[in-house]
């Protein structure tokens, strides 16, 4: 099992957001986590990635059998976890190229590898840019600075492709995307799918799941996963709405 979340409780500023989440993800699987706003979907993604503002008060997360909660943020990334941000952060003054080169090399260092040769790195950049249809030159552009909403999300998938993660957690990657950008982003994710890696797609709407077809769908509600099923659960949710979940509880 790649990821095993057991009875996870997490809070921010003393307010409990996650109230006992259980989730098992195997290699090669795509899981979708759906749910109304404010039920803890983004919190779950943040806790997996290690965002420090959240306190884990109970429970555990095992990743490849290791205790994930003891690892610093960057070690989780090097172990193969990637978080696609709902709101990618603008970092003026840090060029995309420098950012990615540093990230790739830090992850290589973690695994005892030498830095990537410059030519190889640039070839990889070009190849992955094509995959997510980024045409702009990234060399002189600061991370996410002046990017449109769609470009920011494409940039997340570009970074995912560069870092080749084992577990990708995509937090509302579809929000703010028009249909063309959505297709590009979803294509990117699909191309990166393999029997060796897994994806958790967090989304509010079923729409994204037409493009990234999940193996499992979970409904997160008030800090717990209250319902799990196959991809048909997403369609059922779409037609019946989240009120249906509330009523069925």
């Amino acid at each position: 099992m790649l990821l095993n979340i057991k009875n996870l409780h997490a809070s921010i500023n003393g307010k409990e957001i996650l109230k006992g989440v259980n989730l098992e993800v195997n290699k090669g699987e795509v899981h979708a986590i759906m749910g109304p706003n404010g039920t803890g979907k983004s919190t779950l993604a943040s806790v997996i990635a290690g965002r420090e503002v959240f306190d884990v008060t109970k429970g555990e997360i095992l990743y490849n059998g290791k205790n994930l909660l003891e690892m610093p943020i960057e070690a989780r990334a090097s172990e193969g976890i990637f978080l696609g941000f709902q709101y990618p952060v603008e970092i003026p003054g840090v060029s995309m190229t420098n950012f990615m080169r540093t990230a790739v090399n830090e992850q290589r260092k973690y695994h005892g590898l030498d830095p990537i040769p410059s030519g190889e790195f640039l070839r990889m950049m070009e190849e992955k840019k094509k995959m997510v249809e980024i045409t702009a030159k990234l060399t002189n552009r600061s991370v996410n600075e002046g990017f449109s909403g769609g470009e920011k999300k494409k940039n997340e998938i570009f970074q995912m492709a560069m870092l080749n993660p084992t577990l990708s957690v995509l937090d509302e990657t579809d929000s703010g995307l028009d249909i063309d950008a959505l297709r590009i982003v979803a294509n990117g994710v699909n191309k990166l799918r393999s029997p060796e890696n897994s994806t958790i797609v967090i989304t509010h709407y079923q729409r994204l799941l037409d493009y990234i077809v999940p193996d499992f769908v979970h409904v997160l509600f008030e800090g717990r996963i209250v319902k799990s099923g196959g991809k048909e659960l997403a369609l059922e949710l779409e037609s019946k709405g989240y009120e249906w979940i509330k009523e069925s509880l």
Partner: protein
Amino acid sequence: MRTENTSFPLSDKLINDFEVYQSDIKQNDTEKIYNIRKLAFADFLKQGLPTQTLENWRNTNLTDVYNETYNHYYQSPEKIEDIDKIFQCNVPHLNTLMLASLNGWYVSKDEALTKLANGVIYGSFAAALLEYPEIIEKHFAKYADNAKNGFTAINTAMALDGFFIYIPDNVEVKQPIQIVNIIHHDKNICLQSRNLIIVGKNSKLTLIHCDDSYNHQKSLSNTVSEIFIDENASFDHYKMQNVNNASTLINSSFFHLERNARICSNGLSLNGGILKNDNYVMMDGEGCETNIYGLYLMDRKQHIDNLVHVEHLHPNCYSNELYKGILDDTASGVFNGHVIVHKDAQKTNAFQKNKNILLTDKAKVNSKPFLEIYADDVKCSHGATVGQLDTEAMFYIRSRGIGEHNAKMLLMYAFADEIIQKISVEALRYRVEDMVKKRLRGELSVCDQCVLHCSHPEKEFNFEIDMTKV
């Protein structure tokens, strides 16, 4: 209103020396210049050394500096032995015309003043007093205001050497001129130097001004620069400061701009015990443009105080100030920005910004951007920020596998980069990029940038200066 006793060992010594060394002080002066010195001395007697009772010095405490005992020199050193070897700037591809001073005295293998065929004159201020008294009399103490503070007054009274650069009308000096001040002495030293820079009508000059120290003795350097930019002339100015923690630098620059003149000054402060940089800009004509930038990276107990005072006297002038600083440990910083838009200065554009990152709870900064506006048709803004590194950005960077330390470096460098990118001399910009990276990693020692190639400070050191480069 001065209420406290302003007598310090340093001021007593300076006052005493003005009498005792009178013949040395006036040796190169015309009568007119010496009279200016006497008036300035009287100004100093009235004011004393600036203390925290003065608004512009409120957050910079120099009491320890004033109570220290220093050696003062009123004659240039006899001759520097064996100056033929190592003196060179180690910035690759930075092809400058280099002028150097040692402990405040101009050093050169050849004559003290060089006059080029195009009329450009450069060299020692002391020599210029003798050879070009008419130029000096026209400008000396005309822009530096002795009433501003005691340091300026006592400098006018007693500074004997420094740099003199004269660019006549209609000359574009393509090669930047680099002036290097080195402080190296085996005892505590107080030095006062005076620079006079004149850029004639329609002329252009780029000046790189480096303050370096070599050893670890205490030093106090009081430098006053008067810079006159004539009509349509352009002046680019870079000030690099990388001196030891026992050094106090008082740098006062007085810029006087005539109609349609422009200046761009960029102060890059990387090391120093106490740094006080005062920039006074007088835009005395229509259509002037002033850009003043500053970057300061301070740690340990270092202190920096930047003051920018800009006067808009006439319509259609532009001024822009951007200062950015990162303060670590218990370092402290001060920014005083003061823009005065006079009644007739309509259509003024004036902008002031100061941004700071404090890396610890004990680092501190006092920022006071201030606009004083008497005209009604103007566009002005001012602002200051003090903050920590952006935690969202930290998380974003770390989530890609970049460790906390390197994530911090990336963010700090990104913050500094805005000022570095204002450097238009490419070779200097690359060098500063590298130095700032090293500085942020804590790897930049004072010796790194020092033009003296001495990597073993404990070694006996002779002044070996390659005069082919000077």
